[in-house]
């Protein structure tokens, strides 16, 4: 039975009870702002300042160099291949973990986190051990003329490995929370598996999916460690943007290095801006899909 409606007297200032003393509040806010300022904002500003130090003309000529352009192209290519693949893998993995019961589920969930917990250098080394000249596969690959290590396929593989968890991690808690009732309803209404996924499951997770993809993309373009191990650093061929930044810097070409770095930082900023924009634009709808 429901309780009768009780009109309790509400205290006028309901927040008063939990609010901190004023000095404490100011201190906490100051700490947050100073921390972000020193560790995030300042470096970002410095990157752009350094990049434009010798003027806009020099900045663009630095970006227009042949090797730099090739690094940008390669980075985009790697992202274009690895992000969609991880989108598919991530959705499949999240679906399996969130919607089905099976043995080894906990183990699988732990495995998803492996790329986050392991050092990127090791992620790269794994592929060297797997496909390198000394490996079991090495001679076979060589005799068939298949290049994986120190070539684009190796870079793509390492990037996929490192960025795999982003989409899955974002989706698993969301899908688990939503359960399978909506899917059951769709199937009971006659929808087939594909229709259920397309019309019901995907719209329910689309914002989580978008976050996952944005983060995945940012990392795919910015990954250094794993890619560095498998790439071979061949200028104009197997250098991605982060690797190229290091090479330019080691060549004492600070402006060029920071120009490329500013591009990478710009990408990160665009990602963030995009995310905030979507949140602002569709805020109400996002809140609605997060459960009502």
């Amino acid at each position, binding site marked *: *039975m*429901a309780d009768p409606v009780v009109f309790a007297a509400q205290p006028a200032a309901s927040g008063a009870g939990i609010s901190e003393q004023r000095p404490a509040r100011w201190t906490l806010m100051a700490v947050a702002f100073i921390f972000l300022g020193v560790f995030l904002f300042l470096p970002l500003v410095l990157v752009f300042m350094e990049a434009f130090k010798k003027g806009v003309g020099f900045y663009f000529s630095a970006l227009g160099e042949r090797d730099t352009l090739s690094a940008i192209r390669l980075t985009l290519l790697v992202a274009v291949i690895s992000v969609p693949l991880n989108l598919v893998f991530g959705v499949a993995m999240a679906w399996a973990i969130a919607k089905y019961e099976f043995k080894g589920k906990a183990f699988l969930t732990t495995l998803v986190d492996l790329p986050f917990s392991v050092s990127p250098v090791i992620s790269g080394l794994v592929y060297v051990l797997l496909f390198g000249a000394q490996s079991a596969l090495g001679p076979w690959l060589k005799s068939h003329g298949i290049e994986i290590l120190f070539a684009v396929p190796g870079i793509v593989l390492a990037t996929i490995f490192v960025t795999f968890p982003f989409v899955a991690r974002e989706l698993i808690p969301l899908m688990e929370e939503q359960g399978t*009732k*909506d899917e*059951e*309803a*769709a*199937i*009971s*209404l*006659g*929808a*087939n598996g594909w*229709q259920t996924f397309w*019309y*019901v499951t995907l*719209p*329910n997770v689309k914002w989580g999916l978008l976050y996952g993809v944005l983060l995945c993309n940012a990392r795919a373009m910015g990954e250094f460690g794993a890619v560095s191990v498998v790439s071979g650093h061949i200028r104009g061929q197997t250098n991605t943007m982060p690797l190229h930044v290091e090479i330019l810097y080691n060549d004492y070409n600070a402006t060029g290095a920071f120009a490329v770095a500013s591009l990478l930082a710009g990408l990160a900023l665009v990602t963030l801006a995009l995310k905030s924009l979507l949140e602002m634009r569709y805020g109400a*709808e996002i809140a*609605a*899909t997060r459960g*009502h």
Partner: protein
Amino acid sequence: MQVRVANVRKEFDTFPALHDVSLEVRSGELIALLGPSGSGKTTLLRLIAGLEQPTTGRIFFGEEDASAKSIRERNVGFVFQHYALFRHMTVADNIGFGLKVRPAQTRPASAEIRKRATDLLDLVQLSGLEKRYPAQLSGGQRQRVALARALAIEPKVLLLDEPFGALDAQVRRDLRRWLREIHEATGHTTVFVTHDQEEALELADRVVVMSQGRIEQVGTADEVYDTPNSPFVYGFIGDSSSLPVRVEDDQVWLGERPIGLSAPGLPSGPGTLFFRPHDIELLDGCSGCLAGTVAASRRVAGTRRVELEIGGQRERVEIELPVDHPAAQKSRVAFRPRKWKVFPQSAIQGK
């Protein structure tokens, strides 16, 4: 559409949720599966729907064996306790979903789908809310939309899983009446699950009382209330009081005294006496009756519930008296149940 459940058993892992259940739902009937949680009522509903597959046994829709069919092929309307409305779709899109996902040959034109959604919204008395999203509706409205969505596919059978379970009492009573009206208007064979006996008794043509994965009794509201066939049903449906008694020489005995109830035909031996607290007659003297000391007295709505300690045996029973009845003031009350039943010990232990 008649639905027949034949000797169905369902195990989850190795835990049996249903033991050998058989049930026949008549065409056009409104039937309630009633039981406490864990009684298997929702499992039975999901088996009929095809959301679960029976471990053994068969389910027939009419003459057709539906056991091997998936929920998609069974064409049932299923209404979930928590609505399961698609939150990113408007009310109209939710209702039209089942028509929209049909294969191209049988899919109505989109104008037709829209018209059907509007008609169904009229039926569930929510006209004008086509463009709302589920989050903008109250719980009762959401459940109506969920029902309209299930009806849109013209199901053979309508299945509702605790349809009013998440709503508050007043809304629940209104929706109950309303569901009955819809049922009479559309004539669908309808099965609904509930743990609320008032809901089941008021709404259903027949009630299926379930306990621990078994069907205890199937009958009309009158049948399960007036002639419960097991101690469980007696205790579960309506209020009841019980006392451990003994049957000897066709008489019911409490301790060393017969209590004035003759039980011809009952086997001798220990048993349990059940009666309704309100269905008693008060007596002045007591030779052959139940008499007890008033231990507590509570006013409940229009009646007074009096708890009596019977004999020296520390047994307590509850009886109901009119509020202004003088007996409520006394310290000792004698009574005899008008309607009662003794279940022999073996029947109780057998469960």
